[in-house]
């Protein structure tokens, strides 16, 4: 068995046995290929359900707050950054959570893989950097690196930034020449081209709010789209309302998004929801030198004022 999974189970069993934590939150193997499911394990026997692989694409920080008692949580780089964000935003106390860090080699893009097959995928296995994927018609051997999610390809924080213990060896972080090629591509379009791009992006949206609900920083008790008095956004499929939802949600993520990709992972319609937040991440980095979720002692840029803040947009 994968040594990382072995280690996770050992650590979880030990924590539960010693009573250090009440629950361990991690991933369980799903019932279908390329699926995993967040799980809360409260007994030593239950730890055998814990797994970690390239399909653990959701962000567990989302499940960390609002739990009773002390919990342990399996955290890859992005999960740990969102735990940091939760601590900075007072959603979680540092001593409420025991972080089992898992250095991460990226999660696979299920849509990219599905697109290779004419029929549905019936089997998925991975061994190091090699994926074996099959459908009833064919079996393919793939290089994992070529089928990573877009955000994983651009990830510079594969290792957890905050942890109590590690369940694997730290991995080498990549240094990118350009961290935002996707944003550049959109920026290169003219104004109507950009508008059309975003119009197409959201045309399949069914407003199930999986993106919002999978997002670890979308924890508002009442989201602006759900508010009834006053009602800010219409609830139907009118395109303006759909776009207003995506656009305003993105704003609420400014300087907070860690580009964990959970929104994209959760979207049943295959919408690259990140296209909205990526621009904000780029601005946060360029204007404020800020990447979210790296340090529990720093306030996010939109939460703090500094005389050095850029102000050339004010005339």
């Amino acid at each position, binding site marked *: 068995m994968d040594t990382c999974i072995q280690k996770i189970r050992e650590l979880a069993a030990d924590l539960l046995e010693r009573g250090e934590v009440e629950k361990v939150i991690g991933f369980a193997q799903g019932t279908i290929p390329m699926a995993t499911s967040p799980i809360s394990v409260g007994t030593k026997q239950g730890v055998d359900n814990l797994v970690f692989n390239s399909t653990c694409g959701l962000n567990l920080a989302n499940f960390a707050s609002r739990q009773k008692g002390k919990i342990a949580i399996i955290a890859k780089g992005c999960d740990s950054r969102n735990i940091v964000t939760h601590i900075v935003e007072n959603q979680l106390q540092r001593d409420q959570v025991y972080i089992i860090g898992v250095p991460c080699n990226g999660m696979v893009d299920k849509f990219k893989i599905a697109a290779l097959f004419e029929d549905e995928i019936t089997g998925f296995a991975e061994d190091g950097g090699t994926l074996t994927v099959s459908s009833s018609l064919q079996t393919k051997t793939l290089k994992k690196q070529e089928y990573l999610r877009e955000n994983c390809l651009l990830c510079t924080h594969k290792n957890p930034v905050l942890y109590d213990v590690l369940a694997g060896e730290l991995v080498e972080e990549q240094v990118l020449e350009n961290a935002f090629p996707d944003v550049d591509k959109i920026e290169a379009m003219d104004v109507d081209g950009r508008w059309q791009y975003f119009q197409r992006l959201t045309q399949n949206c069914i407003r199930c709010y999986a993106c919002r609900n999978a997002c670890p920083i979308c924890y508002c008790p009442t989201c602006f789209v759900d508010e009834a*008095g006053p009602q800010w956004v219409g609830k139907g499929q009118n395109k303006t309302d759909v776009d207003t939802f995506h656009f305003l949600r993105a704003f609420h993520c400014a300087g907070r998004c860690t580009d964990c990709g959970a929104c994209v992972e959760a979207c049943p319609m295959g919408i690259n929801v990140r296209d909205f937040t990526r621009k904000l991440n780029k601005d946060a980095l360029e204007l404020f030198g800020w990447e979210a979720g790296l340090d529990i002692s720093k306030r996010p840029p939109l939460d703090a004022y500094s005389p050095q803040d850029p102000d050339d947009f004010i005339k």
Partner: protein
Amino acid sequence: MENPYMPYPVRIDDIEIATEDRSLKTFKFVFLNQGDEEKFAYHAGQFAELSIPGVGEIPIGIASSPVEKGFVKFTVFRTGVVTSHLHNMKVGDIMGLRGPLGNWYPWDKLENKNVVIIGGGFAFTTLRSSIVYMLDPANRSKFKNIDVVYGARSPGMLLYREELFEWEKRDDINMHITVDGTDDPSWKYHKGFVPQVVEQNAPQADADTYAIICGPPIMIKFTQPSLTKLGYKSHQIIMSLENRMKCGIGMCGRCNIGKELVCKDGPVFTLDEINLTPKEY
């Protein structure tokens, strides 16, 4: 009803402030089109959707009584978007009325029975409808003793005060009006919460006595034990529930308690029936 989503057009004929804090108003509607009033034939205990175009709809118990002709009345608490809008409307404004919806108190079953009516706060509306119905000269003889326990926070929060005090004077109905508390030295009725007043004043149950309860969930919850103490069996306790509703015709799926839909199979259930369903109200 051809299109059950289509409201009858109505005109606001009168608006009365119902409580001293002005949070409740009673709206009197008349139908714009001839014949709609007949189509809107209702029983005491039913509700309707008050429908304001461009704003929304709200399910409200019908406060007028089937024996009152020429208009329908609703008493509305100001709380959400639609009710706030309604509170700002004027006499003469046109809106919609969709119904009647839901079931009603089981008037056939209640014939030749003693009836105890228990209400709290602003849920007294369909109970007012029921009392007016039972006291109607054509109907009074169908029922044996009628007892009413009605409580509100303070004297000024009692709905239909004038009618209450008139009923108080009659000898064919026993009124037990109560308020949670009052500084008014001239207050000559009960003080205390509804469950207590029920326990002390409602008649002991026999096979011929039924209780109808309508009130906030918390009052319903605490009144049940009082009735049980007085010997009421669960089939003798009739309750009117409320849940969030939209369609009012059993289709939109939100108001269910188990497999029962409060809007269509209810809102009136016996405690017997409710005991078979999850308590999701």
